[in-house]
């Protein structure tokens, strides 16, 4: 049985079609990533799955329970780490954990030792009895994750777990999430803007764009699906149309144009095609600032399916 089964979710906020027919399934013990730009509908999908809101259409089940009809069963089975921290700033880290455990039906020694264990696990034992208001952003994020884990959920939802962490802490968190997935035999659904994050953590991922899943698969499959190498040609001035014509002529059909001056083409064998491309552009008198060649990466997958570069703008930085 699938840990998460989502079928045809649609949801509208006023004029915005936040979800436009989202379907996917996540098997037990899998780590699955939803990847996509701002406003793609990642958080909305998660909020539907954790019973915070209802979809207008479609069905979803988590841990075998319908998110609409068996809300409390779902809530007991899941841990939810929201995009925006939901900690009580005026309590200590430990108090936050204890309350979360209690409303999840835990008590006594079991809860106390679980809280100790988690505080240790996420590395905030030293700050456990300090008021959260004085925590750093990273410490707060760690507490968020501990809060999601306290009652030993079967399915964990992580909405942008590493946003706001420094690169070092981010890598540490990746290691942690991977370890947890195994140690707690968790099914994890995470959303992210970071391609490396999905590549690192997820066994499978889906790229979401404008409320739809545009492609889904393992990182390796998705990369393999893009045959050939990507050639990035950056022009010094805007002779864009002419350059595109030249490229078509040498069998390097442009796929995308980034920022109005970098053309991306896909060719069977980059190493062999490159000299021809350069001399053809040269012959046509088109000045080239740089040319680079890359094996398919998730970046290319992303670009290919969402029609836009995965720029830092998308990362909300």
């Amino acid at each position, binding site marked *: 049985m699938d840990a998460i089964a989502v079928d045809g979710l649609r949801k509208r906020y006023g004029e915005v079609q936040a979800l436009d027919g989202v379907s996917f399934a996540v098997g037990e013990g899998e780590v699955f990533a939803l990847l996509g730009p701002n406003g793609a509908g990642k958080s909305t999908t998660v*909020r539907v799955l*954790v*019973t*915070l*809101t209802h979809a207008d259409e479609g069905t979803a089940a988590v841990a075998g329970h319908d998110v609409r009809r068996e809300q*409390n069963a779902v*809530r*007991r089975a*899941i841990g*939810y780490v*929201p995009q*925006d*921290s*939901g*900690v*009580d*700033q*005026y*309590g200590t880290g430990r*108090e936050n954990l204890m*309350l*979360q455990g*209690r*409303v*999840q*039906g835990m008590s006594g020694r079991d809860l106390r030792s679980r809280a100790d264990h988690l505080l240790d696990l996420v590395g905030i034992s030293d700050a456990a009895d300090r*008021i959260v208001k004085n925590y750093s952003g990273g410490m707060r994020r760690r507490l968020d994750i501990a*809060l999601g884990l306290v009652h030993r959920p079967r399915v964990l939802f992580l909405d942008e777990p590493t946003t706001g962490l420094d690169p070092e802490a981010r890598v540490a968190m990746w290691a942690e999430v991977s370890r947890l997935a195994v140690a707690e035999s968790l099914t994890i659904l995470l959303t992210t803007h970071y391609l490396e994050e999905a590549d690192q953590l997820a066994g499978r991922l889906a790229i979401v764009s404008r409320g739809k899943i545009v492609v889904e698969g393992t990182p390796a499959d998705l990369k393999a699906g893009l045959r050939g190498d990507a050639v990035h040609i950056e022009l010094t001035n805007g002779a864009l149309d002419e350059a595109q014509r030249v490229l078509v002529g040498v069998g390097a059909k442009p796929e995308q144009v980034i920022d109005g001056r970098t053309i991306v083409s896909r060719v069977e064998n980059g190493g062999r095609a490159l000299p021809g491309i350069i001399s053809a552009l040269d012959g046509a008198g088109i000045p080239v600032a740089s040319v680079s060649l890359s094996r398919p990466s998730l970046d290319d997958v992303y670009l290919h399916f969402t029609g836009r570069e995965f720029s830092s703008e998308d990362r909300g930085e």
Partner: protein
Amino acid sequence: MTLLRHTWFMTTRQARNLMREPIWIVLLLVQPMVWLVLYGQLFRNVTRLGGFGTSSYITFLAPAIVVMNAFFGATWSGMSMIADLDHKVIERFLATPASRFAIVLSQIVRSALTAAIQALIILLVSLALGVRVHTGVLGWLVIIIAAILVNSAFAGVSQAIALLTRREATMIAVANFIGLPLLFLSTTMIARSQMPGWMQTAARFNPVDWGVRAAREVVLPGTSWGTVALYLALLLALSAVTAAWATTTFRSYQRSL
């Protein structure tokens, strides 16, 4: 059972957070103290008009100021809910089996606890100003209970408004909009017989006035315990209704998510 346990957990959190910033309980007392001392002095001679049941205006005023303070405090109680909404604490709880009613109730208890502590302080100051409660310790208890009940009745409304509007500015507007009218349409500062007829009628339906009457009844001689019980029961029923209403407004909040 779950409801009681969850209410206890949530209330513990609220009480703890409240006690971490006890300064607010005292700062918020400045206003009622000003009313008590200044009005008490200013209208000292108003009791000559008759119908006050005492010649000491401050004795007439003190129990009503306790209730008024509890009422004003209640109109702000939604602010604490809005803070929790803004900090996404509520969103986190809503994704757990936490009882919605317990979440609302804990906010109301927080507010009522503040009102009870303030009531005690105002009563002690009144005592220093020469106010004597005719029925003694039992009377003090009744006044504090009246304060708690008036507070919870209106805190429920304030919580509902917080969940419906989710905006501080709206909360402030509503608090101001209902605050002074309900105060003046009551016998807080003036004897019933000195009010115009229509105001007397309006006061009859004003829950603030129910609290004022219950509290004043035990301060002045000739206490009718039946009257006290009636008003307290009315306030208790109203509190139950407003708390239940506030709980249903969670649905409106969830629709916004």
